């Protein structure tokens, strides 16, 4: 199949799917109560990639979402970050000041990463961002072995949290919250015999955490030139990783996340973006890749993990992000998407907004009193 034979990308339907999820989710989704900020990011990210955030949402809505997101920023003894949702927020009389968070309602590392991205997509000015508090929060989450926990007093600690800590530090342009050497050594220990990276040092090679490892190693402050050999990845390791990643492109054209597993739309992003970061995105069979993702489009909007599967914002966003990294020249214009920043996982326009608004020095520069 050539690119011109592909069906169209159902842009309006996919935006509609995410818009519906933003406005309400049925009770069958109770299990995502403690990760609603992540769902929000996949929805906003989808609208951003489709260029429809200004067409499909009103300024008053965006203003409301920004305000709600800021309500999830919370401060306390472990520093500042964002909560996963309002699921533990106690009702209190209107206008009362928020108390310090309790041990059971702390900020969450992954959610803090998705909150910053969502606010940037919504073009917030970030005046309310407690940058120093976030740096302290990162410090509180880092463990002796270099990894990070999701929240300061426990929770998951694997490559996903390392990635979020690295992404946040690079967005803030402030690495003082992270012991980079120890974190890099943790990442390197996660490298498996297959060439991919496991979720933790004993884990089986997995597409998602391979992305987290590589993106972190290329975001690290010691890396100044993305095109030069990476000081944290040896030539042999790079070769093995490229081999394993490409081996995961299944005959359907989609990528699987582990050896001998079925293809899944989300791994088209995790594996595809990993190859892109390693500078070998050209090696992906793009026509097969696109035709797989085209077949995962659900007839009523949204994209699922495999053909005929029910869609969700996670697979919808990651499929579009993957498509943004691998444009096909002769495809229908509906497939045209803006450039993606593979390391932060957001559009280049939103990444520019982050560079201009998130680091501390931009605030200093705007400050009227400067000596």
């Amino acid at each position, binding site marked *: 199949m050539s690119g011109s034979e592909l069906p169209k990308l159902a842009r309006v339907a996919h935006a509609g799917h995410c818009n519906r999820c933003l406005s309400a989710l049925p009770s*069958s989704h109770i299990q995502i109560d403690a990760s609603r900020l992540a769902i929000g990011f996949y929805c906003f990210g989808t609208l951003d990639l489709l260029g429809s955030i200004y067409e499909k949402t009103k300024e008053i809505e965006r203003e409301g979402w920004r305000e709600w997101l800021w309500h999830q920023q919370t401060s306390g003894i472990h520093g500042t970050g964002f909560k996963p949702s309002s699921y533990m927020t106690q009702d209190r009389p209107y206008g009362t000041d928020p108390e310090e968070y309790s041990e059971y309602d702390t900020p969450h590392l992954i959610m803090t990463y998705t909150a910053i991205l969502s606010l940037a997509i919504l073009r917030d000015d970030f005046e309310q961002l407690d940058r120093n508090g976030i740096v302290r929060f990162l410090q509180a989450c880092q463990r002796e072995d270099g990894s990070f926990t999701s929240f300061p007093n426990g929770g998951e600690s694997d490559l996903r949290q390392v990635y979020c800590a690295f992404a946040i530090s690079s967005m803030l342009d402030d690495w003082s919250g992270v012991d980079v050497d120890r974190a890099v050594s943790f990442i390197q220990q996660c490298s498996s*015999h297959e060439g991919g990276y496991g979720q933790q040092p004993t884990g089986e090679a997995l597409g998602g955490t391979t992305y987290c490892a590589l993106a972190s190693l290329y975001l690290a402050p010691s890396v100044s030139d993305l095109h030069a050999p990476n000081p944290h990845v040896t030539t042999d390791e790079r070769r093995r990783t490229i081999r394993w990643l490409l081996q995961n492109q299944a005959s359907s054209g989609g990528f699987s996340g582990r050896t001998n597993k079925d293809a899944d739309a989300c791994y088209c992003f995790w594996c595809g973006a990993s190859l892109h970061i390693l500078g070998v995105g050209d090696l992906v069979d793009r026509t097969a890749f696109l035709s797989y993702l085209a077949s995962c489009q659900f007839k009523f909007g949204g994209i699922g993990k495999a053909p005929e599967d029910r869609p969700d914002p996670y697979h919808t966003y990651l499929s579009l992000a993957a498509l943004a990294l691998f444009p096909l020249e002769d495809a229908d214009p509906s497939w045209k998407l803006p450039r993606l920043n593979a390391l932060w996982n957001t559009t280049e326009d939103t990444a520019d907004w982050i560079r201009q608004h998130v680091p501390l020095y931009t605030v200093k520069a705007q400050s009227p009193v400067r000596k």
Partner: protein
Amino acid sequence: MPDIAGDGPEEQPLFSERPDWTDVTPVPQYEGYNPIAPIFYTPQYKDATDYFRGIVKTNEKSERVLELTEAIIRLNPAHYSAWQYRYHTLLAIKAPLDAELKLMDSLAVQFLKTYQVWHHRRLILTAIYSPPPSNASGLNDPTATTSSSAKSKPSPESQAAARTELAFITRVLMVDAKNYHTWSYRQWLLAFFDDVHLWEGELGFVERLLEEDVRNNSAWHHRFFVVFGRGQLQGEEDRVAVLKRELSYTKDQIALAPNNASAWNYLRGILERTGTSFSNLRSFVEPYTKTHEDRLGDEEILDLENPAPSAEAELPCVAALEFLADIYEKDAVSKSVEIWKRLANELDTMRKKYWEYRIKEALKDVPVQS
């Protein structure tokens, strides 16, 4: 409305209707204006979480908190605050932790894919077999320190517990043999108890799983973890014996199913880990690189060390050709290039660009011939 929690607490009356909960003031959730992705909570979930916020506010740690948090977990196993609070309550009221493990047995199978189920199990085992120092606040997560392992010398009861636990995980892996959380837990468990008798059974366990499905990559990965992940290799002699055993096992599995990426990745992995040259495997690999027709001319020598492909095998095998090309790359790169061209144009066209890239990369290092 779908009943997502199966035989959970739906049949139970709401906490707000129960006389034994009247002394608790429920605290509703403050959702705020313009919430993102609000969920239509069921009355049961709203009721239980209202009471949970009420309990957290007064910091009550009691028997009934266990009932409340269990109700929430059954409705939303990813509610990590409820898990956290439950764990702290168990410690505070000195609840019997073996009963907690028993409850976890049923929850683990029901919510196999939820991380918290496995994390809580780790916390409970850690609390039983390596209690934190008495001055610790108990609020911090003990698995979040690097030095977490069971008491220095395994006691008979911890050995028995470890065996029971391992047997339980084996049953869970029979339900889903590739579940990432379950495998991670098994690896953690082995390292935590670090009992030589436990380690010894692992190879047999992996082999049983691979007999059922030789393409189970999680089992192959676990084998690598068991063989090389622990300081099992003692002395040069042992090292040689282990390599020999692993090569022999892997070759047999490749003979059984030649087009199995897991086995080839394992083979490469053990060679790289032990610093063994790929070219040592040449006589094993070559028969798999030919078609059945081409093999007709070859002399049939029974070589027990190098099992040949069966008559039904799909040949030539792409992974074998890739392997042979890697052997040639060092001193006969033109032969590698030939193989890569064949893979690109004929046998593995999905990766055409990759094989062409390999050619380009290999020739970059070769001096231009005049």
